[in-house]
């Protein structure tokens, strides 16, 4: 395993509704935790990268403002954006800068304060994360886009609403034990009963997806501090190494998507590249974080990552193989569904979970002694995809 670039510090705020502070204060919380985790100060950090999806707060060019508040000036800083996968894209850039020898240590901070705007405004922003010229004029929004995939996938592969419910129940199982999750409640099958008007998860959003199939909006920030081998060994007792990075993109317009029943092509593309670089296969992954912005997205991710054969993702959730004790534990921190999805912070939060797992520091969520972990982070409707593989 190449030991060139390591994660030496991770931090994450509590994911909440209505954070009582501004974006700079939110970002500071995650950065402080990561710096203290790494045992370093701002003086040790050569550059910073800030990541979010635009237009949730009013701050234009947030990198400069946040770098100042975090005490990271006069070092270089800039902004990286791939909507929901922004902070894993930031980590890819940080890796490249360190590997190129430009900097020894780089901090990647993801943040999002979604509660500055209403839910309907948020859906409009997300719809405009797709094609504003040709698709947003129809009134598109994220649940509807993923529902297009769900409808076709379910028809072809025999996946049922019951299978999707099981993904949500699993997420809630771990959201309950993750004190930083926004949704801490359990979810039971009867919460999806369409005949019970009180059932909190059953309401239709965009067919076939229901309230319970959609992830939780949240405010939050994450921070990942990366270092070259020399600094990693100097600062960190338990460096977690980046083994492989893969990334892909796809046509934004639904009219150009090859096969809705197969799932997101970026999942397959990014995974293939990351596995090749890491020199491992799906069988080697002991714990994974996947982008479950909707329940269907987790099933499609199983297949893109090779945890299941195409069309067979349902078998994993039916047999509880993706639970903590299963063959390939997935999203045992609650995932986007329960932990929450503060867009720009999500990738960094997923990375934090895997780093803590590989260090054996994941507390009640700890999987038994994993040595290799994977993060799958998707931006937009499979518009961008990043897969990052970590080893200890």
């Amino acid at each position, binding site marked *: 395993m190449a030991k060139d670039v390591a994660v030496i510090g991770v931090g994450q705020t509590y994911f909440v509704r209505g954070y009582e502070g501004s974006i700079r204060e939110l970002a500071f919380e995650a950065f402080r935790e990561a710096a203290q985790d790494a045992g370093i100060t701002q003086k040790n950090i050569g550059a910073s990268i800030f990541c979010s999806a635009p237009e949730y707060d009013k701050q234009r060019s947030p990198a400069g403002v946040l770098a100042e508040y975090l005490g990271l000036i006069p070092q270089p800083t800039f902004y990286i954006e791939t909507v929901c996968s922004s902070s894993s894209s930031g980590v890819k850039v940080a890796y490249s800068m360190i590997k190129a020898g430009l900097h020894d240590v780089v901090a990647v901070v993801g943040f999002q304060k979604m509660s500055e705007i209403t839910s309907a405004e948020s859906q409009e922003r997300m719809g405009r994360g797709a094609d504003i010229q040709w698709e947003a004029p*129809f009134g*598109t929004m994220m*649940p*509807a886009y993923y529902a297009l995939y769900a*409808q076709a996938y379910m028809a072809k592969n025999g996946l049922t609403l019951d299978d999707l419910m099981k993904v949500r129940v699993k997420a809630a199982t771990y959201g309950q034990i993750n004190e930083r999750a926004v949704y801490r409640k359990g979810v039971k099958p009867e919460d999806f009963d369409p005949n019970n008007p009180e059932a909190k998860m059953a309401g239709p959003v965009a067919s076939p997806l229901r309230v319970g199939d959609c992830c939780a909006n949240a405010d939050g920030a994450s921070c990942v501090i990366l270092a070259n081998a020399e600094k990693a060994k100097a600062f960190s007792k338990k460096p977690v190494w980046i083994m492989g990075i893969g990334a892909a993109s796809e046509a934004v317009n639904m009219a150009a*998507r090859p096969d*809705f029943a197969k799932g997101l092509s970026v999942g397959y593309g990014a995974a293939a590249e990351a596995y090749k670089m890491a020199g491992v296969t799906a069988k080697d992954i002991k714990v994974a974080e996947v982008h479950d912005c909707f329940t269907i997205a987790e099933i499609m991710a199983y297949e893109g990552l090779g945890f299941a054969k195409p069309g067979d993702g349902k078998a994993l959730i039916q047999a509880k193989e993706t639970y903590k004790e299963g063959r390939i534990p997935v999203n045992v921190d609650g995932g986007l569904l329960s932990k929450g999805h503060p867009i720009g912070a999500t990738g960094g939060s997923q990375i934090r979970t895997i780093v803590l797992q590989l260090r054996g520091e994941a507390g009640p969520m700890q999987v038994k002694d994993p040595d290799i972990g994977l993060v799958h982070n998707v931006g937009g409707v499979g518009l961008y995809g990043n897969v990052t593989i970590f080893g200890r």
Partner: protein
Amino acid sequence: MGFEKFGRRSFTAMTKTAKFVDLLAEGKVEGSACKKCGAKFFPPRADCAACFSKEMDWYDVPKKGTLETFTTAQYAPFGFEADPPYTMGVVNFGEGPKLFARLAKDIKIEDIKIGMDVTVRPLKYEDGQISFEIIKA
């Protein structure tokens, strides 16, 4: 005419493909085809990504296709609040570019099925906005 008249609500004022809206007003749903290499595009493009040409013709989208997938939205984003429920879908013409649009309001939601035969027609809203929609073939 600018592109602000396109769709339920447009987010783009100007595009070199704004003639698309004039063609809709004339009753035609057209994509663009490259004069040099013949590549076809829907939605239309002003520039050919296959050969870098900027000389494009218009072509009629096929009359017959099948519904590849769909969803009925019960909620709408900001600015579309008056519309739900509405169904959006993707038409597969068998070859060439697919097409994304809303399905006509007069199709019963329970009658919408993957694989059903569909076609496409222009649509004028009461407020003057111009779009296109998927209808039963």
